């Protein structure tokens, strides 16, 4: 069985770890002190680049690379810590804020030192009243102890941290939505480019970083890059010749919820498989896994055929899904996929910011189609058409058989793909919320089509046994391009 490796969460349950003195007993702020005494800012930036740290907020973008885009000669530069945590299924940032806020402050300090930043805004979702209170108290303490404010520890560094409450809009988690919201406007994402790294909040270069990403920094500085890169698999990116390393280093705060016996946050090295994680979380509640959402509700769903998929950035991307925020939602054999999709589509229809027509109209449209199917009013035609699949020659094409036409299922896929096309990965919207809508819609439909068809045929929701509800990999176009990555050392 895979062992938990607690690093970010190691001292989470120590009593009073939220106070400066106790945090200090557990090496608190020593890593920041090490950074400012032993390293130049550029050294820290290089360490972060070499560590292979990828953003934990959703996009999984290399943190070191993001920092390298920030122009060094434009000041002021801002850091926005993204503590909006609203992706359904994600709850790891909350515990950091509520229980160990000084760790976040230390991470912020290291980032500020590396990037020459003097002002940080922590954008906390409005519902996190306790988290904000704890962080505010910790910030106050850090000011009193001379770790924030003017001329920190006699180094001439000036760093301020302010918390900023959100007000219940999911889209403010998107980095440019967050910036708009921070500027006091509606949280509507901006067109990119310019990227925030170049022109962000108040028109200045801005680094946007998730809470968990920042909490990794003290450990990278404290224990070194070599120690850090030993955790998690490093794959080979074979698009380059010779292959370049594609790191999935460090631990991840996996948030697991739904049908498992012990839901919660588990800190584990990146790269364990889906079934291993379910095992760690006390095993499945129920008889059989029907489906797993691997990275928050925006991620394409995995079926029971895919439980050997490793939960890291590279493997999930190659499996045509994503690690996203690391929110894993498990569903057992009693769950109806149409019903689950309806729930998620209601969420997205409610949260679209309304700027782009495909998203503003398309998302409620998708929701309405799924609602219609769930209500038993899904539409089906009496005609048939040639069926596409793996043909006799072993390639994708006309199989020579015919299939019935389920109009609403075609419509569902077409509307979703017109918000953002999941096959070509192109979208007609300003932000990637569009893909967060069409990814679940299309993947649920393609992978669990029999359940959608049954609902239309029978005029009511029908929960099929897992084997019948799932389209086998060899018959499904969505799986056709799935690759299993190889570890770098093997090549």
């Amino acid at each position, binding site marked *: 069985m895979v062992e938990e490796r607690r690093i970010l969460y190691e001292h989470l349950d120590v009593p009073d770890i939220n106070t400066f003195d106790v945090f200090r007993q557990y090496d608190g702020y020593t890593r920041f002190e090490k950074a400012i005494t032993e390293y130049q800012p550029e050294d820290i930036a290089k360490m972060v680049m070499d560590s292979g740290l990828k953003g934990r907020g959703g996009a999984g973008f290399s943190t070191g690379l993001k920092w390298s885009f920030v122009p060094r000669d434009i000041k002021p530069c801002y850091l926005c810590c993204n503590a909006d945590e609203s992706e*359904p299924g994600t709850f790891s940032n909350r515990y950091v804020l509520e229980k160990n806020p000084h760790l976040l402050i230390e991470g912020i300090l290291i980032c500020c030192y590396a990037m020459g930043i003097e002002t940080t805004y922590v954008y906390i979702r409005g519902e996190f009243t306790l988290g904000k209170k704890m962080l505010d108290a910790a910030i106050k303490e850090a000011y009193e102890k001379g770790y924030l404010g003017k001329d920190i520890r006699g180094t001439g560094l000036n760093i301020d941290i302010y918390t*900023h409450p959100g007000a*219940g809009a999911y889209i403010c988690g998107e980095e440019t939505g967050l910036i708009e919201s921070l*500027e006091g406007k509606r949280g509507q994402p901006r067109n990119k480019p310019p990227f925030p790294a170049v022109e962000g909040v*108040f028109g200045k270069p801005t680094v946007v970083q998730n809470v968990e990403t920042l909490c990794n920094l003290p450990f990278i500085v404290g224990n070194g890059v070599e120690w850090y890169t030993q955790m998690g698999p490093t794959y080979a990116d074979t698009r380059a010749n010779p292959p370049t390393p594609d790191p999935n280093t460090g631990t991840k705060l996996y948030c697991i919820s739904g049908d498992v016996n012990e839901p919660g946050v588990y800190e584990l090295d990146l790269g364990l498989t889906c079934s291993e994680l379910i095992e760690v979380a006390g095993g499945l509640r129920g008889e059989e896994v029907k489906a797993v*959402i691997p990275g928050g509700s925006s991620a394409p769903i995995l079926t029971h055929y895919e439980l050997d998929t490793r939960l890291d950035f590279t493997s999930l991307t190659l499996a045509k899904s994503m690690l996203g925020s690391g929110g894993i939602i498990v569903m057992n054999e009693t769950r109806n996929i149409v019903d689950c999709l309806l729930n998620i589509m209601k*969420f997205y229809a409610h949260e679209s910011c309304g700027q782009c027509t495909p998203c503003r109209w398309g998302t409620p449209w998708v929701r309405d189609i799924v609602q219609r199917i769930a209500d038993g009013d899904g539409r089906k035609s009496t005609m048939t058409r040639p069926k596409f699949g793996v043909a006799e020659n072993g390639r994708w094409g006309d199989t020579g058989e015919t299939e019935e036409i389920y109009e609403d299922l075609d419509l569902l896929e077409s509307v979703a793909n017109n918000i953002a096309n999941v096959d070509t990965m192109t979208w007609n919207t300003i932000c990637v919320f569009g893909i967060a809508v069409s990814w679940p819609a299309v993947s649920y439909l393609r992978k669990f089509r029999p359940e959608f068809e049954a609902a239309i045929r029978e005029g009511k929701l029908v929960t099929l046994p897992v084997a019948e509800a799932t389209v086998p990999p060899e018959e499904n176009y969505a799986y056709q391009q799935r690759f299993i990555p190889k570890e770098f050392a093997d090549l």
Partner: protein
Amino acid sequence: MSDELIQIETPFAFNEENQREFNALIGRYPVKEAAMLPTLHLAQRQAGYITPAVMKYVAEQLEVSVMKVKDVVTFYPMFFEEPVGEYVIRVCHTLPCALRDCKGVLEHLKAKLDTDIAAETNLAKGTTPDGKFTLMKVECLASCDVAPVIMVNDDLYKNLTPEKIDEIIDNL
């Protein structure tokens, strides 16, 4: 809607404590407008909900047009433009909570409080006649490990069962 057209019933101004907090807030940002969300939170805490007078006051304080404040208030679900109950009960109904029977929680609360669920544009629908409770559905509260969950004003309640709900409500 121009500023003059707004009907102002009860004038609004920050009380002393909130004024102090506001003064501290405003110094954090290079432009005043950026203090919009924290200022509206402060104002809503004092006034109960965002009235036209509140919007006008906030607009003056932040040196922006009233329309801009209105624009923001309508965008964010946490700002109310209608009176709400003394206790606002937010029931999470997103997928992980749905997998743990949040429907049951909602039905139980509806029956117990004898009220409907508030709509975003009709809060009165979910508010009890005595003005004590407002029942509303919200999206994931980032506590899916302890689902189903509700928030009563600022406090989160976890792993709910009908008995627990009764206890929480009876103790309010």
